């Protein structure tokens, strides 16, 4: 499951733009829609502040 560390997240919206499933929403801080997210982890590569992680 994709987890966003809200303390680290800046809200730059890069993950949102590069999510292939449109599962992230950014308005200041990011939210993940668990119904759309497939845990593909592509967003993790685009996070400049290491705020994203897929946890078992």
């Amino acid at each position: 499951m994709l987890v966003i560390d809200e303390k680290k997240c800046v809200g730059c919206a890069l993950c949102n733009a590069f999510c292939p499933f449109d599962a992230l929403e950014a308005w200041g801080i990011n939210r993940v829609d668990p119904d759309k997210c497939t845990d593909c982890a592509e967003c993790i590569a685009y996070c400049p502040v290491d705020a994203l992680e897929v946890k078992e």
Partner: protein
Amino acid sequence: MTQDKYDVVVIGGGGGGMTAAALLSHAGYKTILVEKLPFLGGRASSYEHKGYIIPTGVFLVLDSGELGEVFKEVGAELRVTTATPQRVRIRGKDFQPPEKGQLKAVLAAAARDQAEADRVWKAIKRGLSWQPPSAEITFTEWLRQYTDNESILGIWRGLWANVVGGLPEEIPARAWFDLVHNMGPAGSEGGYPAGGHIAVWESLAKTVRAKGGTIWTRAPAQRIIVEDGVATGVVVRKDRQDISIDARVVISSALPNITIRLAGENTFDKGYLKEVSGQIRVPFFTIIVGSNRPLYPYAAGLMLGEMPRLSMLTVPTEVYPDYAPPGKHATWFLSAKCSPRHPYDKKAELDMLLRDIKEAFPEYDKAGAEVITAQFFDGDWPGFGAAVGMEIECRSPIENLYNVGDAVTDPAGCVPGLSGAVHTARLVIQDIKRRFRPGEM
């Protein structure tokens, strides 16, 4: 762990790192640049989203000045269409500044009468040509000695936001005068690169590769190797493998606090750690809007000092329609009016910015406008790497480890933002050229 050997390894493919890698490869140094993200350009780049070109930070790129000189030096192609001067909204009316004498003209437009305009202008000229004001008071305190006109103060609210970020009521009075000395009285000069900002960095990357240099993306540095107070390489993760790169020099275009984390705190001088941990990063945030009709049909856009949040907008589709999908228009809105010194509520700030946008452009709904994305820049992904006067030097206490970027500076005078990143990279490369020859390393 495999081994590779280079003259120089550059950490980070932002404006500073890319400039450094291009200049080094061009001068014959065996160079590798490693970037954590999948794209180059850091906070001065762009990407595509919903058919729009979205900036990753920087709105306007200067093709004159140091970036242009770097491109000339290395023989890379830079296509930027200049779109200045920016208009200034004063008490609800838009003022078009002349090509020359912009500040004086804007001042005259904001003043209640000629006597007020003359009084402020004389004080500014004296500060520039005779003695800058003391750093003991803020810019606002200084200006209020000459005027209580909120529209005149608004000019600097807009200017600060665009050029260095932060608030004139928090910045030492002399900082603005020092900046003018270092970079001229420019507001937000610049333009749009053909193909988006990413094209600027891909052009430099092409040069690096043509000269035998190496660039890796999706390759986060894991640590900087330090032996006996000297940097000797970097460990990089690529394709799930840790690769050790030996190098004579390490240049980091990551923020100084991240550079410290990579090299290990215990390897640094205590005073340096204190300087870096005291740095204040300057936030800003943006809303990128798409619409069926242009919201403001002027490419260089508008500076707005007098609104609560909105400080600037630019209109790239007036120059390059392909910054938006066919039939659509893009307007980029910036707010750089939160204090970097106090906490704030990000969602509330964006709500306020959107309210400002709709107030400034009542035709928002009729033009079919919609938010394409909203971005925050702060912390380790900041609007500006350091509040004015808090930049540190490029050399670090670890021998052969340099920082470049917008959180470090030339001791001879600070240049902010992307220009500062390019400037510090040039300084560092000069220093390296003085100390080592390619291949001798």
